């Protein structure tokens, strides 16, 4: 069946909290990481630190040492030494090896810094959510900067 593409954004009162129950056990959970910390593979195109409404795909095979960040808005003392501070991909992999979770999805995602809120809301986020959905994760872990 042809991919229908991202659906139109749904208007929802901010007083209403969308909530999807998690059914199952953590040991059966496949986790997808989604970050707004401007993380990318080291050989991928850098984010524009002045404002960027695109996202980067990060392979589930990547380790923290394979990642870089492009940011001028959060404290870098931690990420300069250990990307797991904002993108805990090594820690998740360890939990998977130990059987505490089932694993990681094949793709993970990061956004950069942007104040273009309308563009994010109407275009970027619906398209990104569609890609996240295609990974069929058991749950998504979100991190900021």
């Amino acid at each position, binding site marked *: 069946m042809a991919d229908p593409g991202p659906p139109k*954004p*749904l208007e*929802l009162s*901010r*007083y*209403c*909290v*969308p*909530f*999807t*129950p*998690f059914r199952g*056990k*953590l040991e059966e*959970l496949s*986790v997808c990481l*989604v970050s*707004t*910390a401007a993380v990318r593979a080291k050989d991928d195109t850098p984010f524009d630190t002045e404002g960027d409404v695109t996202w980067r795909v990060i392979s589930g095979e990547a380790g923290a040492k394979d990642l870089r960040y492009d940011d001028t*808005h*959060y*404290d*870098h*003392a*931690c*990420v*300069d*030494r*250990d990307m*797991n*501070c*904002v993108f*805990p991909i*090594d*820690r*998740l992999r*360890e*939990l998977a090896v130990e059987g*505490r*979770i089932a694993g990681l999805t094949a793709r993970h995602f990061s*956004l950069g810094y942007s104040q273009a809120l309308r563009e994010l809301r109407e275009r970027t*986020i*619906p398209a*990104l*959510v569609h890609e*996240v*959905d295609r990974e069929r*994760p*058991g*749950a*998504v*872990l*979100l*991190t*900021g*900067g």
Partner: protein
Amino acid sequence: MQRSIELVGIPTVVVTVEPEETRQARPPRALSPRGFVAGHSLGRPGDAALQRRILMDALGLLVSEPRPGEVIERDYGPSPVTAPGTR
């Protein structure tokens, strides 16, 4: 973003260092390490034990009593950055 992912039927949990801002966004599930600053969501560099603890607590919210719209704040010791004005 988090709310949009829940709307397509995927459970989510956010680790936030800005609990007030996150609370205003009415998150489905949120963990905030108390006093931590942006860039240090999972704690100190190289402190795998602390990173794992915060990570497991965050994932644990998936199997905890639902508290949609709330931000669960927990103490994980002193903030990784103690000097003011480091953000």
